[in-house]
């Protein structure tokens, strides 16, 4: 495989780094529990993220039960409702999506896709997971702490976050949340350094940056962003901890609570919002970019066609990553900041639509006249494109100051971000799990259960979030546990709320089928073989499936081509693997 026929293709440069000596585990504990193998760490990350994500899913049912049938469930007090909202949001955004995309897919796919034996610092990578687990446990502990978890809303805005009127504000809730976030950031940094350095410095021979699968580009860029955005959240958490524990006034203005003047004074709540959203907006793209990358690979593989405009796709990812650092204050149009700021941030926000639109067009053009296989990964990828465009269009409403002001803090915003960064990335996660499950376990996921899961989830998500736009447009505010007899709210809103709740419960049930499928197929799934999708990227070319420790056996792979040689005219089959030199007279790509 390695011999190169002169004249037909470029010689691959010699190895610059000697093959690494891996740490070889000696016991069951170091093989499966305290493992330094990125693939095991990935599964640990994904399992933990999905477990805590399940908690957040249950919380969303409880919220919907309250909204759909107010007054029916006595145990859902307004305080409990706020706690559900807060924990649902924070878990979904940080502990599920971020951890699953970067810790889960990042760990599994980066070393395999770039042709490395493992991450560059396996020990730090292992620590990363265990600190993440600790962060999750601290978060879960807040459910059992006196006063329960914090009910400050996932944005944790001060001053209310640490006052006694908010659930957990003067109890353990907010403290455990802040400690947990700090731990998460420390743990993530250890993993993130690994992902970045592995992509930059540990690629296979012949694997140039412009031959990387877009999945790696998405995860890599998102990780770089996370390493630069999480510091702002870290600082905000530390400062709020001091405000709460030491009585400093970083974020706390002078205020009167229950008729009593508090000892705080002179702090700036808006400062917190700036710090939070300097993290919070890149966070949206930290979740979205891996999804963009993965979906590009799913579409190309399952449409048997090279990705359209690969270079533009790469530069769009990088441009989105860079731009996302200068748009954060579009979350703060109604915060009372200077109006000229709004002008600047509205402009930058709308500029992001350019690279994003490039990506959407390129996905559609990849599909155009492709040999589209409606396999489950492809179905989820198509669902992603549609959902992402929907959510993106409402983003244009909310990005403009004058339109945002009346829509701000209504259910319209909830519908928007659930479409664009809730449903859309989750669709990609599902698609990716259906796509890579055969590589991870050696067996296919059950198709019938998968189709049931897809159609219920896809249609159900629209049943949930489409009506929510309408509910928001008539002015229903978000975060209200009960609407009561409010005059401007028509009866249709109450009916819609009941409908949304029923839809949400049905979609929730479909996820149980998915979870069952994950375990069922482990045992009874169809044998997959090494490359069931006939894909080109390196992870499908491993000598064993699932890949063994060290990934590649004796010889490291050598890369001869980009990741998208599908349906090449004149080739013996409809794909040419990246490590396949191919027939000598074939025209070369990228």
């Amino acid at each position: 495989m390695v011999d190169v026929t002169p004249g037909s293709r470029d010689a691959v440069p010699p190895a610059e780094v000697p093959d690494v000596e891996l740490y070889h585990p000696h016991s069951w504990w170091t093989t499966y529990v305290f493992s330094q193998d990125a693939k095991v760490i990935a599964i640990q990350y994904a399992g933990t993220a999905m477990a805590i994500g399940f908690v957040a899913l249950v919380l969303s049912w409880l919220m919907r039960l309250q909204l759909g049938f107010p007054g029916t469930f006595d145990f859902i007090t307004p305080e409990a409702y706020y706690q559900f909202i807060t924990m649902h949001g924070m878990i979904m955004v940080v502990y599920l999506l971020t951890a699953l995309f970067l810790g889960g897919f990042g760990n599994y796919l980066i070393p395999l896709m770039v042709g490395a034996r493992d991450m560059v610092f396996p020990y730090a990578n292992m620590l990363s997971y265990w600190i993440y687990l600790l962060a999750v446990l601290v978060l879960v502990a807040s459910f059992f702490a006196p006063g329960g978890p914090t009910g400050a809303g996932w944005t944790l805005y001060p001053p209310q976050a640490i006052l006694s009127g908010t659930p957990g504000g003067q109890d353990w809730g907010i403290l455990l949340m802040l400690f947990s976030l700090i731990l998460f950031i420390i743990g993530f940094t250890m993993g993130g350094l690994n992902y970045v350095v592995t992509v930059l410095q540990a690629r296979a021979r012949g694997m140039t940056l412009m031959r990387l699968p877009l999945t790696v580009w998405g995860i890599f860029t998102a990780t770089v962003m996370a390493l630069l955005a999480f510091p702002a959240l870290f600082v905000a958490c530390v400062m709020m901890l001091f405000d709460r524990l030491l009585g400093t006034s970083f974020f706390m203005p002078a205020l009167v609570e229950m008729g009593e003047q508090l000892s705080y004074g002179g702090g700036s709540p808006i400062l917190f919002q700036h710090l939070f959203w300097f993290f919070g907006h890149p966070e949206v793209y930290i979740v979205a970019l891996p999804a963009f990358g993965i979906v590009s690979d799913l579409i190309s593989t399952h449409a048997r066609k090279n990705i359209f405009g690969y270079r533009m796709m790469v530069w769009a990812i990088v441009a989105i990553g860079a731009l996302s650092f200068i748009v954060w204050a579009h979350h703060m149009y109604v915060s009372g900041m200077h109006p000229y700021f709004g002008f600047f941030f509205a402009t930058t926000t709308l500029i992001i639509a350019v690279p994003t639109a490039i990506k959407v067009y390129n996905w559609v053009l990849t599909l155009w006249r492709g040999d589209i296989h409606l396999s489950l990964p492809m179905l989820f990828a198509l669902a992603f494109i549609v959902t992402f465009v929907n959510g993106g269009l409402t983003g244009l409403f909310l990005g403009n100051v004058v339109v945002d002001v009346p829509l701000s803090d209504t259910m319209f915003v909830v519908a928007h971000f659930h479409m664009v960064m809730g449903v859309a990335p989750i669709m990609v996660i599902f698609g990716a799990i259906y796509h890579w499950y055969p590589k991870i376990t050696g067996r296919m996921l059950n198709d019938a259960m998968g189709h049931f899961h897809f159609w219920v989830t896809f249609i159900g998500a629209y049943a949930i979030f489409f009506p929510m736009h309408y509910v928001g447009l008539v002015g229903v505010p978000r975060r209200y546990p009960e609407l009561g007899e409010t005059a401007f709210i028509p009866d249709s809103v109450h009916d819609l709320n009941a409908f949304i709740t029923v839809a949400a419960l049905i979609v929730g049930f479909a996820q149980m089928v998915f979870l069952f499928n994950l375990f069922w197929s482990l045992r009874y799934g169809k044998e997959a073989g090494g490359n069931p999708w006939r894909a080109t990227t390196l992870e499908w070319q491993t000598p064993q499936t699932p890949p063994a420790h060290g990934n590649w056996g004796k010889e490291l792979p050598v890369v001869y081509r980009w990741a998208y040689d599908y349906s090449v005219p004149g080739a013996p089959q409809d794909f040419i693997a990246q490590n396949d030199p191919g027939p000598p007279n074939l025209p070369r790509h990228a």
Partner: protein
Amino acid sequence: MAETLTSNGTTHQRPDGLRGIAADWSSDQRAFKNVSWGKAMMWVFLLSDTFIFGCFLLAYMTARMSTTVPWPNASEVFGLHVGDVSVPLLLIAIMTFVLISSSGTMAMAVNFAYRRNRRMTVLMILLTALMGATFVGMQAFEWSKLISEGVRPWENPWGAAQFGSSFFMITGFHGTHVTFGVIFLLIVARKVWRGDYDRGTRGFFTSRRGDYEHVEIMGLYWHFVDLVWVFIFAFFYLW
């Protein structure tokens, strides 16, 4: 001309300047040629850490600029009395001098390490650690002096409460960095002294082979902490 060393012992030439950067980034295997994984990781980590200190300092500047009560005068607050004369910023000047000097000895340690001069490397690292510890000691003295004068994170006798909050938070976070640096300097010094880097002994936790480059990576961290102090000095004490 830069050279890339391959693992089979041959070298190949790389172009200089911008053309070289473009060539490196469009090449395979590594974007930064001849940069080890460890060194690359330290640089990326320091970039991330820069954002942490940047956020701390920006938050402090926001508080200082938006406060409606007077901000305490740094040169009086941080003055020391020598006899009867009040010398502004005396202690801070000495602290800054010590920390900057420690960067000098650190650089010498790196040089000696690459010359495989174990004795001098250890000596220079220990000297660096000693100066780092002195810095932290003087910081402890400064903290206790201010605390005895009534400065608390939530109040102080001279003006805006955010003065004390920012001071303890930022210098505390920096002091923690220096303390961790001293601990790791001592660990590296011990490894150099035992000859771990000559023999390539495996690390206890990571099981990676030791290498004299670790002294340089340690140095990167130390210089960074030093540079951060320069910014804290400028923005907190001189402003």
